[in-house]
């Protein structure tokens, strides 16, 4: 359990320069998620354009891992079809819960592979997943709204 495996250079870079931070309009759904154990919080908005995730904007308070993870999420999902974004979410979740046994796919997860080390620190997995869970929740709400509007 080497702390350097956790604090990869890429993670610290995202932490210092989070991509896409801030809350923006328009959006279809906004959620607020909290990690009850440590108090980390995120407010996250999703804007869908038909089947495409056209924006994810957020305001987060938390540790380097949770902040960097939100930044990487932003890089990965914006502009992707919802289905593909959910696939990435699955990949990322599997990586986090893999106890360090899962080999990440750099072509898909890009900077997200830097989080492989987090999987060895059980207490930090929730930090890495906070923004992703918020994204999942917000997206499903946004889809519900689209459905209702279409119907």
């Amino acid at each position, binding site marked *: *359990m080497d702390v350097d495996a956790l604090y990869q250079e890429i993670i610290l870079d995202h932490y210092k320069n989070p991509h896409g931070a801030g809350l923006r309009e328009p959006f279809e759904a906004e959620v607020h998620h*909290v990690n*009850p*154990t*440590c108090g980390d919080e995120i407010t996250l908005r999703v804007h869908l354009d038909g089947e495409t995730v056209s924006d994810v904007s957020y305001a987060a308070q938390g540790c380097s891992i949770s902040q960097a993870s939100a930044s990487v999420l932003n890089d990965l999902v914006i502009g992707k079809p919802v289905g593909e974004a959910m696939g990435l979410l699955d990949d990322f979740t599997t990586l986090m819960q893999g106890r360090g046994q899962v080999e990440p796919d750099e072509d898909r997860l890009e900077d997200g592979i830097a989080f492989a080390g987090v999987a060895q*620190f*059980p*207490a*930090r997995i929730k930090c890495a997943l906070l923004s992703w869970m918020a994204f999942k929740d917000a997206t499903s709400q946004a889809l519900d709204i689209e459905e209702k509007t279409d119907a």
Partner: protein
Amino acid sequence: MTVVDPVTYDVARIREDFPILGRRLAGDLPLVYLDSANTSQKPAQVIEALDEHYRLHNANVARAMHQLGAEASGAFEDARTKVATFIGAPRREEVVFAKNASEALNLVARVLGDAGRVREGADVVITEMEHHSNIVPWQLLTERTGATLRWFGLTDEGRLDLDDLDTLITERTAVVSLAWVSNMLGSVNPLEPVIRRAHEVGALVVVDASQAVPQLPVDVAALGADFVAFTGHKMVGPTGIGVLWGRHDLLAELPPFLGGGEMIETVTMERSTYAPPPARFEAGTPPIAQAVGLGAAVDYLSAIGMENIAAHEREITAYALGRLQEIDGLTIVGPKEAVDRGGAVSFTLDGVHPHDVAQLLDSKGVAVRAGHHCAKPAHQRFGVQSTTRASFYLYTTPEEIDALVDALHHTKQYFGV
């Protein structure tokens, strides 16, 4: 019916795991422990798991981010997974740790009241053979809410009288709560028709499995009840821990029981929101070491196999029922045959009060319980104020039953009856 395989089920070998079974009592008599329905003894595997936890891994859980914290949290949550697997819970989040079965039952009663699921005009149905821990919480709840408490009676044999099933469990019924195995009569209740009827009318079913989980293979998913409560100390685990299993959708919608650390999502002075189950129902520092000990207990029981333990329990109970009935003046209160029957045998002995029986047995090293066994109404039903109870578990031998019988003959002689 499974019969104990003498090769895989070696009582002598099992007894070696239980340090206390080597105890000598006053007069250098060996301990004959026949009070396992009261509390079971603990194998070295459980005692050592506690010891190792405190010596090497002790820390608070969930909230601690350091290495000890990760170890303690991992061990605590592993214990939850072990318990979930042991009882066939569909999800590990359905396992709530309480301090004992009594707290688990009270938890359900309190939150059903707070949620308005039991209210004025509703019925709560229990049975006359319940342990006080499955009577008083419902009395308190019905008093607080204005609901009505009703109950199943018992047959003369000591079985649940289901003749009234359809008139007792009706559209008014909000909850049915009953024991799986009676701690006094030993009866194993037919849960299936009760659960079916209760669900037909939309009532929730709570099963007090305090005497069942230690003795029988349990699969809560197959059982189909809504809540199941049991207690660690009766299943070779530590004191200070009990379990409430609950259907996830129910747990997820019910309000909290106790408020405090660990059960919250966020807290402001004005208002709080609560964590999802199981955390919602586990306020404060949980029984951490005790959960680890219970995990070790479950490992221990699983290694022997619950099918084997159940078969041994049946055989030793059948042997005890037979031998006890050889004694003149001895009356068993409860089913006299080892059919649908757990390993607790309560009886009276003409002319000697149960406490005096227990005292004389104790003078021979035979530990049994005397009194009402927290089942006063069941005693009243059978017209006795108290009974003597011998109860058996995975480490009980036929020789111990023989020692009980000899000591009972001695008791009769001593009191000249």
